[in-house]
């Protein structure tokens, strides 16, 4: 059942992105930035966690979860250390996405030759 809802929810988030491409005529950069901000906002209102509970990877794999986990990490640190935690805790939970993108980017640059 989890797989089915991961497919549906993840697919629907991608459709929202596609509609922003096609109807609002936004560039991919704008679209992704807006989606990240939406994810952060949803977590601010406490609405993104239930979606993850419901759809699993359908909610954690789209880029919206990046905004969600940034806010989440910040709030968790803020609970313990007050305001300064907002700054220090930001990458507590998101680190793996950016870290692995950098590492595999470097490895890719070493291994593969540019095309064309």
């Amino acid at each position: 059942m989890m797989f089915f809802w991961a497919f549906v929810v993840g697919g629907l988030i991608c459709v929202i992105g596609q509609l922003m491409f096609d109807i609002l005529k936004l560039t991919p950069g704008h679209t992704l930035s807006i989606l990240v901000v939406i994810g952060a906002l949803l977590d601010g209102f406490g609405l993104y966690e239930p979606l993850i509970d419901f759809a699993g990877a359908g909610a954690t794999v789209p880029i919206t979860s990046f905004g969600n986990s940034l806010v989440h990490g910040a709030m968790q640190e803020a609970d313990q250390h007050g305001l300064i935690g907002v700054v220090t805790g930001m990458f507590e939970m998101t680190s793996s996405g950016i870290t692995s993108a950098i590492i595999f980017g470097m490895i890719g640059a070493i291994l593969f030759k540019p095309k064309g």
Partner: protein
Amino acid sequence: MPAFAFHTYKSQVMHMKQIRKKAFLPALLLISLSVTGCANNEDGRSASDNPDYDLTQVSNKSEISQEIANQAKRTILKKQEVIGARAVNTSDQLLVAIEIRQMDRFRLKKLEKNITSDLEKKFKDKKVTVSTDKKIYLELDELESRLQTKDVSEQKLDKETNRIKKLISDEA
């Protein structure tokens, strides 16, 4: 005129393709639905219509009676949102893992809290820990079946429960 005729033909083909695609999507959904449906039934122990089926019959081999755990499971499974439960108790602890019906997973954290406080009220002398995590469910499932089949010493049981508790608190 010929251009127009050509276009209508082409658009008809396109249209047909679209129709085929439209039919394709529900078919795909249906297939994935039925596949996941089968996967769900595989775990016969979590059948909600027969809660008694879910109870571990603990043999006398174990040093610690699992009567409290069985009672806890019986109480939880009365709730309609719960479709499966695994529980283990030691002399002072009660560990419970629950599986929640898919449509109620939006309220997962709330249900977890409610069930915890319910159990705490019912078993005042035990320290109650409730988790909805799949991993905890699997771990408790394994521990349950080990209690059922093998002689597990009290020390070993304490060690295992502490390990699983650590796994639960790591998520916070």
